[in-house]
């Protein structure tokens, strides 16, 4: 699906589509005749910010959006190979500068309108003109995208729709190794029905003040390419969907799909227990209890992401964070194994650098593991020039006590607990932490690049794969407002490596994976962030849902075949 780094988990218990091997194999229900009908309920912890994929980055919103909208390509749920979804095939020219997607025959929106390349182009253009999106990075190398954004043209010249809407041809100014996958959702990740949205935003204009950002369809999808059709949305309660008879894989067997809001993980767990919820992601602490329940079955996958404790290398209050030795000391100073054992109860893996363990490019044998070692941490601090003060807190070279804030979002029990743990363990190595909790949105606002008034924060990334390109996280060119190098990591040699991984010219997998590991080695030494752990995705579903077989790539890839056994 969308490879873009842009999705950040708002709540840990939400599950994203990712890779690796399923721990449980689904029961075969062959030979039984499916019984259509019934209602599916998926549990989430919040309302969607919007149903318009251009405007959101949080995984909760995607739980709603993926019911109705689709993109051109997908990862195979079992092999995680890139393969067609709405596109039948895709072709990248030898020089890597022309990309052609060819659509399947007979694609129709739920309202009967044909699905064409115009819908694709519309979504791309709406994304480029949106003032509220973070999703324009996919178009960096697309010809004419910047001109369109600036209002110099009234269309993106580099995106052409041909063969009566059946093929989409994209031209690039420069090779982009990840172009095929990055652009399969027209930047937004999911394609919008242009016919309906045009009445609010017509892209054929040079007036850049017109955007798709505020219109009623953003909260009420007018037509659907996905398995479900939007019916209604009750804020704070639920969104209801009915089956899409025009779904390209066939109409779902189940009649109705509900995404329901619960106040927290405890409520979701209780609702799973009583059978009110059909399937949901759960928290690690509940795994043991739920596996004992007869009516439920559980799935555990490695995640394409990790949770981190990041440092602002340009913070005014904590100049020591720019020092590599200090960051190494802070990495030695927090017991990450204890986090895995006691906070996520073994449902995670240690991570030592930027590639998540689930990724094919992952290699850790020559990486420093930074085992928990307070003595070593103190040594490193002193080596960096810090002096112990009489109050047990180190003084930095300029004489200021080493006190700083670490911020994270609430409600998120895991992160709050990690924060309190780090606070206490850093006290032991002479670094004083002021713990601050806030909502996820506030946290995002606080850590926006390129402020200097924040020091450390705990958050997580998900959806970092299967492609290993993490250019937007570590390249110094992404130290810019609303971009992701919020930790201000600058390393020219890493920049060069990242450029090659991102833009080739050699996009060969083996070559790239080698470069990726070189990046990892440098990051492992520089520790711009502390990689805390990569948490597993835990999904539970009712046993009576047939063909429910989530994989690390997707939970609902075959939802049209699910049926409820009485």
């Amino acid at each position, binding site marked *: 699906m969308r490879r873009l780094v842009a999705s950040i988990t708002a709540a840990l218990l939400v599950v994203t589509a990712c890779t690796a091997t399923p721990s449980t194999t689904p029961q075969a229900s062959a030979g039984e005749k499916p019984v259509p009908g019934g*209602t599916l*309920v998926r549990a989430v912890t919040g*309302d969607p*910010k*919007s149903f318009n994929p251009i405007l959101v980055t949080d995984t909760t919103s995607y739980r709603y959006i993926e019911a109705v909208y689709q993109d051109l390509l997908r990862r195979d749920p079992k092999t995680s190979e890139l393969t067609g979804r709405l596109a039948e095939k895709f072709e990248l020219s030898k020089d890597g500068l022309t990309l052609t997607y060819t659509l399947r025959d007979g694609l129709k929106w739920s309202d009967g309108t044909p699905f064409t390349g115009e819908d694709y182009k519309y979504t791309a253009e709406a994304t480029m003109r949106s*003032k*509220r*999106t*973070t999703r324009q990075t996919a178009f960096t190398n697309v010809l004419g995208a910047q001109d369109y954004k600036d209002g110099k043209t009234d269309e993106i010249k580099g995106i052409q729709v041909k063969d009566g809407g059946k093929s989409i041809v994209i031209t690039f100014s420069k090779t982009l190794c990840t172009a095929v996958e990055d652009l399969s959702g027209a930047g937004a990740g999911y394609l919008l029905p242009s016919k309906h949205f045009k009445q609010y935003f017509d892209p054929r204009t040079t007036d850049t003040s017109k955007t798709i950002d*505020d219109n*009623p369809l*953003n*909260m009420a999808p007018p037509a659907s390419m996905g398995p479900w059709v939007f019916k209604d949305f*009750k*804020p*704070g*309660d639920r969104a209801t969907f009915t089956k899409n008879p025009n779904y390209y894989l066939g109409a779902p067997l189940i009649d109705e799909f*509900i995404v*329901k*809001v*619960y*106040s927290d993980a*405890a*409520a979701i*767990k*209780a*609702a799973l*227990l*009583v059978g*009110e919820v059909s399937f949901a992601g759960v928290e690690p602490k509940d795994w043991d209890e739920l596996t004992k329940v007869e009516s439920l079955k559980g799935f555990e996958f490695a995640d394409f992401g990790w949770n981190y404790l990041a440092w602002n290398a340009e913070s005014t209050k904590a100049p020591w964070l720019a020092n590599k030795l200090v960051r190494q000391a802070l990495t030695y100073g927090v017991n990450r194994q204890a986090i895995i054992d006691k906070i996520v109860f073994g449902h995670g893996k240690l991570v030592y650098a930027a590639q998540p363990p689930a990724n094919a490019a992952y290699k850790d044998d020559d990486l420093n593991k930074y085992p928990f070692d307070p003595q070593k941490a103190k040594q490193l601090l002193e080596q960096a020039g810090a002096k112990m003060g009489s109050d047990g807190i180190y003084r930095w070279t300029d004489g200021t006590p080493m006190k700083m804030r670490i911020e994270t979002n609430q409600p998120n029990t895991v992160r709050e607990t990690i924060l309190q743990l780090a606070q206490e363990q850093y006290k032991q190595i002479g670094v004083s932490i002021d713990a601050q909790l806030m*909502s996820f*949105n*506030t946290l*995002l*606002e606080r850590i*926006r690049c390129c402020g200097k008034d924040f020091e450390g924060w705990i958050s997580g990334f998900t959806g970092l794969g299967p492609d290993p390109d993490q250019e937007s996280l570590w390249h110094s060119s992404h130290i810019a*407002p*609303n971009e992701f190098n919020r930790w201000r990591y600058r390393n020219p040699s890493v920049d060069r490596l990242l450029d090659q991984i991102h833009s080739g010219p050699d996009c060969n997998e083996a070559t790239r994976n080698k470069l990726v590991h070189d990046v990892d080695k440098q990051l492992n030494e520089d520790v711009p962030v502390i990689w805390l752990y990569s948490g597993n995705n835990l999904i539970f579903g009712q046993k009576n849902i047939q063909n429910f077989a989530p994989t690390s790539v997707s939970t609902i890839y075959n939802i049209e075949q699910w049926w409820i056994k009485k």
Partner: protein
Amino acid sequence: MGRFVLRRLVQAVPTLFGILLLTFLLTRLSPSDPVALMFGDRFNVTEEQRQELRHNLGLDEPLPVQFITYLGKVAVLDFGNSFIYHRPVMQVIAERLPNSLQLSIAALLVGLVIGVPLGIVAALTRGRLPDHVIRLTSVVGHAIPTFWFGLLFVLVLGVQLRWFPVGSMNAIGRESDILDRLWHMVGPVLTLSLGAISNYPRFLRTQMLEELSQDYVRTAHSKGLRGRLVVTRHVLRNAIIPLVTSLGGILTILIGGAVITEQIFNWPGLGRLFFEALVNKDFPIVQANVVVGSALLLLSYILRDVVYVIVDPRIKVKA
């Protein structure tokens, strides 16, 4: 009577004005920049856009001018758009209001239906076992923090024993089933009315004992009226009058307490909306929620006064 109601409504105007002033000042004098709050989680905001919004919102005007503009908007119930839902705030509020009213009205009724008889029983059995039991439970009930009561209800009766649903308004697929709704209301209504249930008996008992020691009761007894008749005819009526006054306090609890109760029971009402909006810095919703909550409170005070006049024959409405 109509005149009386009208007079009370007019009297409420300065109060309403004070409330609006306070909500206005709270958002303006907060340490956070209102423009930053308005943009919420929006990215890609340039300094020019901030200035533009500042101007559009009239934030570059002097405070009194801003306040008058604000009053004008409130008068036509225009609180702007929600940052999170990107819809008019009043729409969002209107969707949630009925859910909250269901809870608070039910809680008020439950409080009266359980609380008043207990108070009467306690007074009539003064010094004996029922009196002691009622007084003990009501003082204990009053001391229990409502959020803890709700939490235990959900965790013990819901999650652990599975006797009651753990939250939300209806089971899936039974949205129009009234019995199911009532079943889901047990927890939140009990939590909300805990204060009332434990307050009324104590209050009523004291009032009744006071009335029972009045001369007119002794006179009635000496006239040979039977005990029960005296109680129902005179004592109860007079004892209930102060109870009506105390309704104000209860209403404050009902509307304020809804924040916690709805949060615990996952009830999509105004209280939860308020909490979520606050956490998400959706300030238009927060502001509107306070105004609507306060307006409800004022209305119920007026309603209370009207009831008071009806119940208390000593008060003659100046007409």
